[in-house]
């Protein structure tokens, strides 16, 4: 594993006071917090900042970390010393916060305790560590985020989730056991909607029901459709004659192509509704089609002649009201 320089992460000196550490954390948290930041890699940077603060804000953890010495460099290969943790009074484990996705992929698991880097876990977390949380509440509900494509949200999908659960071995040690579940995501799930998996949260220690796992669904932005609640909007290019004269055109919907009647006299920006063609539900959403009139280029002598004829024969001034 690689050494992490927590002082460098927070941009403070090794002699920084608790107040200076806190100020540095607050400043960086504001900059990289995933809820408010537009910085690239904000989530990753925020986790690094949180991990550094988790250690440096705690006098015990900081003292233990400082014992590793000041000669380590960020990213250097590292193994904890054999006598690691001796001489400290230990209390508490990793605190609250977002964790990494176990197994990666398209979802992000947010459980407790938070999952920091291997470096952090080898020093302060994980079973067998002197800093590990000695007692945990039983049967707690857990929460995770899951990302799906818009088409998957419309028609349903399935996802493999890897959940890490503590298990007491015959020798009395607590080990993390990876449990894989396949979740069927129902068709018509909308952005921000919750899915409950009964009994898939934290297992109860010493009897009692296990907690539930709540999955919060996030629908990824789609290049073709914009999703707003259960309604979807699609921009449809049409020719000037289709808009002016009216036409029947084929338009894509999430449920498959349909014929749409473009009324004569439509303009660019005209909004048409396909009732019930949005996301399923009670009631189902609608699909809105926004027309975009696209002009053919005057690239050939014939096309140019047609535009010139329109210029001569169509008395039309779109700027009449502006002068």
């Amino acid at each position, binding site marked *: 594993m690689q050494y992490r320089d927590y002082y460098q992460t927070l941009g403070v000196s090794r002699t920084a006071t608790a107040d200076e550490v806190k100020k540095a954390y607050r400043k960086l948290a504001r900059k990289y917090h995933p809820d408010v930041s537009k910085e690239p890699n904000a989530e990753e940077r925020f986790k690094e900042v949180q991990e550094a603060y988790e250690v440096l804000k705690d006098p015990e953890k900081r003292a233990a970390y400082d014992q590793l010495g000041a000669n380590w460099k960020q990213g250097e290969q590292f193994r904890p010393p054999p006598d690691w943790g001796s001489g400290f009074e230990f209390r508490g484990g990793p605190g609250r916060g977002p964790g990494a996705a176990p197994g990666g992929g398209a979802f992000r698991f947010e459980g407790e305790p938070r999952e920091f880097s291997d470096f952090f876990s080898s020093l302060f977390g994980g079973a067998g560590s002197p800093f590990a949380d000695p007692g945990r509440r039983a049967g707690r509900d857990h929460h995770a985020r899951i990302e799906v494509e818009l088409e998957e949200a419309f028609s349903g999908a399935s996802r493999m989730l890897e959940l890490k659960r503590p298990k007491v071995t015959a020798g009395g040690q607590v080990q993390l056991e990876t449990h894989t579940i396949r979740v069927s995501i129902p068709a018509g799930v909308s952005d921000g*909607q919750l899915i409950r998996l009964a009994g898939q949260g934290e297992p109860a220690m010493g009897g009692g029901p296990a907690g539930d796992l709540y999955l919060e669904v996030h629908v990824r932005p789609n290049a073709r459709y914009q999703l707003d609640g259960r309604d979807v909007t699609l921009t449809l290019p049409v020719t000037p004659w289709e808009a002016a004269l009216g036409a029947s055109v084929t338009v894509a919907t999430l449920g498959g192509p349909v014929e749409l009647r473009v009324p004569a006299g439509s303009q660019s920006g005209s909004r048409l509704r396909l009732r019930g063609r949005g996301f399923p539900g009670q009631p189902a959403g609608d699909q809105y089609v926004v027309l*975009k009139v696209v002009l053919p280029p005057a690239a050939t002598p014939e096309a140019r002649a047609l535009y010139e004829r329109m210029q001569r024969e169509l008395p039309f001034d779109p700027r009449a009201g502006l002068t």
Partner: protein
Amino acid sequence: MTHAIDVLEACLLGEGDWIAAGTLCRLSELNLEMLIELAELGVVAPRGYRPEEWQLPATSLPRLRTVGRLIHDLGVNVSGAALVLELLETQRRLERRVHALEQHLGGL
């Protein structure tokens, strides 16, 4: 150690589903006093008489989790977090509109 694969059917929670205040507090890392303040500020609309017995729409959870993160990670107070939440939601709505307009205007 890897365990066997379970296949689970998910239960979709919609606008008509309600979750106990205690469960929402645990999932959002908020305490009941914070939840009461958020209800007073109009961030959530609980049903029930005593706060301990409140139930809230399942759709409240994403908003409450954002509030919880803002409070714990950035050190803002409850009313500050409620204000940030409102501004973030307005920003996202406007970004969606800008995106839709850009898509419409693209190529014109």
